[in-house]
């Protein structure tokens, strides 16, 4: 028995010396990236990595000093945000850029806590499929990392973003891009982006980031109401803005949509949170009716006919509460009348949204393709059908059903 123990101890010693602790990394040896941005620089790309400074986040000693970096250190924008530092490296490939960046850092870059992947508009227009596949192949990136398109340079956005209510930049990005309460921008993770790259005509929507009051946005003509990212001047410490959505197809940017379009997108896809919706008054010019709308039942999307001209239907059910209503409208229409008014208004807007996105981007933004697929028994038939082409000839039929259930704490009228 003693011999067995001796042999076991010897084997354990050999195993220990073979392995040792050389594959372990202390937490203090790693630089944790919070966000990664990709910009276009001629034929190359500029990879910007935003690192958190744990000591200043936790209030420890030695906070506020920036670590070494190559080209732009981020002193201009970084002066506003003392808890992070941005490093930018130019290269042909993302991972070679990161390797080069490590030469300037004392620590090893760890990408497992990256919360945001930001693609600039130029990169998005060229196509992001390759980058997305690269990120998905790596075990370091979580598939739940948020993605966005930036109308300004990704580097500038990361330097300027200055969370005013959080110390931790990772928390800021998570709360902002997870879209828990926001109806004016979608939420898109790396995984969803990867799956929709080859989804046979179905598009992917990403939130749009920009700096406030940026004049570089010359996109899309849509949206009588609503605004695009960067157009709204909110003021405050944080000049970074995330609003609206970008439509991609096959990994290429097709269209930038406003916040209003994002709202209708959420209505159609069942991701609507509570929203205060304005309908123009029918009785008093210049006045409006404000309703607080929430999702009733999940919207029912369907493909009733699939052929040369597919017939696509959408049924949206919303619950409403009167927030503001001119007396004349209320007295004239009553609750039922208001229901009909709201329903018809929303129906028009939704149909307009669908037609517009179809024509402008040629992409099935809302995902009707999933329902059209059900009409086919195998993949071969579906591929031959060529949904992307057929979608352009699709006819929409939208039914909106608004049910005003409450009048608030004060009776209207």
């Amino acid at each position, binding site marked *: *028995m003693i011999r067995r123990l001796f042999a076991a101890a010897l084997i354990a010693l050999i195993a220990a010396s073979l*392995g040792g*602790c050389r594959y372990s990394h202390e937490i203090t040896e790693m630089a944790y990236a919070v966000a990664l941005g990709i910009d276009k620089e001629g034929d190359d790309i500029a990879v910007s990595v935003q690192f958190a400074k744990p*000591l200043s986040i936790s*209030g420890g000693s030695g906070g506020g000093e920036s670590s070494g970096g190559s080209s732009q250190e981020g002193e201009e924008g970084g002066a506003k945000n003392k808890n992070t530092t941005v490093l930018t490296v130019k290269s042909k490939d993302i991972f070679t850029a990161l390797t080069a960046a490590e030469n300037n850092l004392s620590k090893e870059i760890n990408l497992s806590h990256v919360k945001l992947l930001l693609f600039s508009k130029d990169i998005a227009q060229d196509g992001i499929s390759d980058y997305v596949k690269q990120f998905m192949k790596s075990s370091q990136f979580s598939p739940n990392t948020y993605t966005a398109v930036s109308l300004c340079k990704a580097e500038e956005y990361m330097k300027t973003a200055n969370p005013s209510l959080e110390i931790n930049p990772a928390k800021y990005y998570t709360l902002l891009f997870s879209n828990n309460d926001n109806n004016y921008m979608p939420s898109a993770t790396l995984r969803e982006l990867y799956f929709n790259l080859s989804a046979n005509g179905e598009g992917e929507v990403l939130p749009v980031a920009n700096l406030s009051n940026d004049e570089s946005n010359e996109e899309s003509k849509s949206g009588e109401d609503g605004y695009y990212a960067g157009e709204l001047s909110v003021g405050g410490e944080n000049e970074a803005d995330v609003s609206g959505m970008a439509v991609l197809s096959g990994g290429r940017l097709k269209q930038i949509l406003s916040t209003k379009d994002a709202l209708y997108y959420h209505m159609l896809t069942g991701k609507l949170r509570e929203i205060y919706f304005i309908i123009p008054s029918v009785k008093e010019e210049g006045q409006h009716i404000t309703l607080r709308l929430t999702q009733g039942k999940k919207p029912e999307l369907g493909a009733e006919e699939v052929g040369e001209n597919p017939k696509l239907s959408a049924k949206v059910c919303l619950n409403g509460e009167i927030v503001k209503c001119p007396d004349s409208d209320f007295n004239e229409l009553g609750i039922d009348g208001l229901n009909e008014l709201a329903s018809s208004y929303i129906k028009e807007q939704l149909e307009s949204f669908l037609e517009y996105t179809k024509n402008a981007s040629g992409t099935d933004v809302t995902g009707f393709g999933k329902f059209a697929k059900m009409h086919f028994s195998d993949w071969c038939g579906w591929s031959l059908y060529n949904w992307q082409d057929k979608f352009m000839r699709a006819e929409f039929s939208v039914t909106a059903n608004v049910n005003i259930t409450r009048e608030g704490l004060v009776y209207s009228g």
Partner: protein
Amino acid sequence: MGKWQSFLDFHKTEEGYILKEQDKPYKSPPEQNINVFKSVNKNFEKIKEFMNYPQSGDLIIRWLKVVLPDRTADAFIFYFDGLSSRDNIGHFVLKPLMQMTAIMPPKCPEEEYISRQLITQNDVVPSKTFKQAIELVCFGGCGIFVDGISVCYVADVKGWEKRSLQKPITEGSVLGPQEGFTELIRMNTALIRKTIKDSNLVIENMTVGNKSQTPCALMYIKDLANDSMVKEVKKRLAQVDADYIFTTEELESFLEDSNLKLVPQILATERVDRASMELCDGNVVLMVNGSPFALVMPATFFTFMKTPDSRYMRMPYANLLQLVHYISLIISVILPGLFIVITQYHHEMIPTDLLYALEASFEITPFSTLIELVVLEISFELLREAEIKIPNIGGPSISIVGALILGQAAVSANIVSPIIIIIVAFTAVGSLSTPNYSLGIAFRIMKFVYIFASAIAGFLGFTICLFLHMAMLCTTKSFGVRFLSPIAPRTREGFLRTAFIGRDYKKTSKPDYNNSKQDPDADIKTDKGGDDGE
């Protein structure tokens, strides 16, 4: 084994070898297994030789005269002062021998006259050999030699100082009886007997230790305990070849299946109720004179994890406590290893907020996480041992020193990180909450193995260590019963009923793992109105 033996003995000092030589006695002890003589003087000479009189100052020899029917004979008594009760000797041995002979005429032969008519002590053993007589006198008897009678009468007059019944020290409980065993074997067996008033309770007397002849008692309930189990215990006891055995702990190392396995294979309990319950479950209990612990066998992992409280509390509270014990055991063994895995290899598992807090706290300490953790664990082990050894007077100072060293000073001096202190504290609390002391120590040792395995290869090393640990536990046996019953192998009762506490009125059968003899009417369940039908 010869070559290996010499290899392992290579580093022994010369002194060790010399001591070993001197251990051998130069002269073999005199043979005691000879018959008692008729002549009292010859008996006296032999007693002096065998019992080292007058070197042994506590051996008292008192000469007297006994009036027999047809003669007056010389006699002497011998006993150990302090071991025997002087009052009992005076009242029940000397007085009848010296005074009653004149009053009461003999009605039987000489040999029987003394034991049956004169000595009024309740237990008198007529010994024909010196060996038997000396053994009984060494255990508190009073030997009587009478000239002309080749028998030594030994009266049981035990009267040494003993501890009174006290609360069990190592197994406290809130509810239930608070009686603990003492060092006196007869008192202990009496406590068991008064708890289990079953005539089938068998208490077999035997001795262990070639020279110490320590009495021990083997207890089992005849119509419950597995016969082959009892036979196996007796066989192992008979094979114990040691000169001196004084405690159950020493005996345990002779009886258990494997000394080198980290887990204990026999339960040692100080509680009367616990030992009684184990007897009623069909197990075998062994007690040794001089130790307040009873050995229960066989013992599985779940035997060690049960506490006295679990039988006395209401079912929901008892099960919650059991859950706490399991969690505390798991924490005590795997928490430090998991901490190393997560902080050295799998940083992606740490929530980002916590990660920054950890990095900020580790940034200012000079040592790596592994070294800090190991040093603090070792410090805590030192502190724990010091607390046991230190006299009561110095107890509070150890607490202060421990709190200062392990707490405030080390953190303020940036030697260790506060997170490590928390991990070590949780581990220590988990270890102290383990119901059984021996099992707790076993898992404390394994904790270090987990730490090093995790440091070598992360989750791979951790899982491999866990795998090997489970393999060891799966193949450990306690008197033929697998240690992890009823997980592996699964028994009739199942895991949940064994690991947790069921409702007493629904418990109709004995545990299955020890193959005890079952009550043939065990399947009849009491009817409680079907409120919680299973």
